[in-house]
């Protein structure tokens, strides 16, 4: 029974992944798609570099720059995967008019949504690898590939991606009740996380009340552990008192809480959407 369900969920994820990839990669010819995939992340990094140079008036601190660079690079996952998952509802409902048929199919929507987000996950991973390589080679970010704590890195990465998936599913639920607002919602939520989770600002610099929020978000620990696993250190004074293991535990705990919250809210919103007739409501916005 459990094995059948697992098989069914894997099949759903695989199918949705294929569909998502077909959509993600079919809008342009492969050459153009490859160029876009390389140029976009590098351009984003360069924007950050110039902003940093202007703000510091050229007096660069490699530690700080590496902190910002890594935070900004890995944060691509948050924007892209969050958007990739939550936008599925809008796209399937309005553009393809297929949400009603997907919804009444004997599958679990979580796996379908996650599967559709996989394409974004893959393209973002490629973008992150390119950006990191660019950072190491051109911007001289001090990353020693032989000194990276790979077990910590991969465990952290996977847990973080699970967190982002949970957030994506939560947003997908909210999108069921909204018309065209999911884009703004993703941008808005992403912006809050960008500020609160220490993507560019160390959380020590945030006001006290915002630090409480930061500490409640698993993405804060995710970014911290990624930095520690790659650079071997981090700049955050608040989090410095915790060992890697302690941070990992805190991240797992906050992740579990977020997953439960996300599941509860998604189910609640899905019920409301069914009650209000929003699942297949096409408004041609």
């Amino acid at each position, binding site marked *: 029974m459990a094995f059948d369900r697992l098989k069914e969920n894997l099949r759903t994820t695989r199918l949705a992944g294929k569909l998502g990839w077909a959509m993600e990669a079919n809008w342009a010819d492969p050459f153009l798609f490859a160029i876009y995939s390389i140029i976009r992340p590098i351009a984003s990094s360069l924007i950050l570099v110039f902003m940093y140079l202007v703000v510091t008036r050229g007096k660069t601190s490699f530690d700080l720059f590496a902190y910002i660079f890594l935070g900004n690079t890995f944060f691509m996952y948050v924007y892209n995967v969050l958007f990739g998952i939550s936008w599925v509802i809008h796209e399937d409902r309005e553009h393809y008019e297929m949400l009603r*048929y997907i919804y009444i*199919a004997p599958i679990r929507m979580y796996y379908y949504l996650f599967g559709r987000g996989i394409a974004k996950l893959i393209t973002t991973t490629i973008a992150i690898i390119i950006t990191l390589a660019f950072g190491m080679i051109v911007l001289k970010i001090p990353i020693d590939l032989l000194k990276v704590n790979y077990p910590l890195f991969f465990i952290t990465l996977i847990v973080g991606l699970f967190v982002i998936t949970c957030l994506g599913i939560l947003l997908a639920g909210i999108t069921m009740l909204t018309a065209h607002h999911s884009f703004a919602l993703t941008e808005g939520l992403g912006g809050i996380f960008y500020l609160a989770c220490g993507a560019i600002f160390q959380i020590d610099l945030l006001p006290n009340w915002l630090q409480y929020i930061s500490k409640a978000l698993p993405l804060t620990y995710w970014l911290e552990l990624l930095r520690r696993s790659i650079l071997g250190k981090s700049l955050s004074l608040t989090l410095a008192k915790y060992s890697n293991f302690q941070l990992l535990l805190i991240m797992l705990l906050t992740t579990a809480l977020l997953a439960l919250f996300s599941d509860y809210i998604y189910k609640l919103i899905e019920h409301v959407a069914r009650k209000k*007739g929003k699942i297949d409501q096409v408004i041609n916005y």
Partner: protein
Amino acid sequence: MSYAIETLDLTRTFKKGKKKNNSNSKKPELIMALDKVNLTINPGELFGVLGPNGAGKTTLIKILSTLLLPTSGIGLVDGIDVAKYPEKVRKKINMVSGGEHSGYGILTVRENLWMFSQLYGMQTKVALQRIDELMKLLGMQEYARLKISKLSTGMRQKMNIIRGFVCDPQILFLDEPTLGLDVQISREVRKLIKSWVKEKKEKTVLLTTHYMAEADELCDRVAIIDNGKVLACDSPSNLKTSLKQDAVFHIEVNLMLDNLDRFKVVPGVKKFAYEHKPHTGRTDLKFILENDSYISAVTGEISNNGSEILSLSKAEPTLEDVFVSLCGKGLEDENRA
């Protein structure tokens, strides 16, 4: 006996918007889409729900297919409550809606259909074989490898019909499946529906339509629905037989008549409906009279109005006449009379 589909006082209301009742309070105006609908559909039955646009047909299908929750009442599919256990219901059903442009345009017809077969857990080999069979039945073989963004509306609808049948569901909901299709494609679709139910005795189809000929041709039983209420439910022949003692007349006149309410008070008129034909400037009138002798009173009333009768025929009752007799309007003129 367990029914394939059963509804018990199934009711659904929608909020239309805010209506100002007085200066202080705003109450939403409610539309009654389904009003205590009670239906029982047997396994293996091809059951039709016939009614004009806005009668509540689609709402009924949405509730039974787990897309929408009822406001009150119960909907059961194979004995399972659709509101409480949607996951269990979804294993037994599929649904196709007519008149829409659904489909992943970046995939080919075959890829789209294969993808859905996989969502229902079909083995790829079996699924592809079935897809090919169904495409052949509906004359779509040459479109198999075409991206569906390149398909015409009719072809896309055909593909959606195949999508409904491909997973061989126990219960299939067809919501106006031939809406917007040309005569030839509609005929092919009806043929497919008939042959599927004939071949697989245990399969059940709930079909909604506002084409009375479609309901007459396909359905074992028909529920006539209007304003969310079931007005009658029986086999098409029994429904028509109920009008046998009445006289049904179809009259075509040369003017766009107005003040049609006066026909309601002509002696002997039980029910009447009409349809304006703006492109010809004519009006079709349908009368259900207590008996033949009252037709002279009707023709007299038409002449008094200065209209000329172009044709007059006494007709065998159709399902549309049954509908007219039940609610005093035709299937096409739900906003009038």
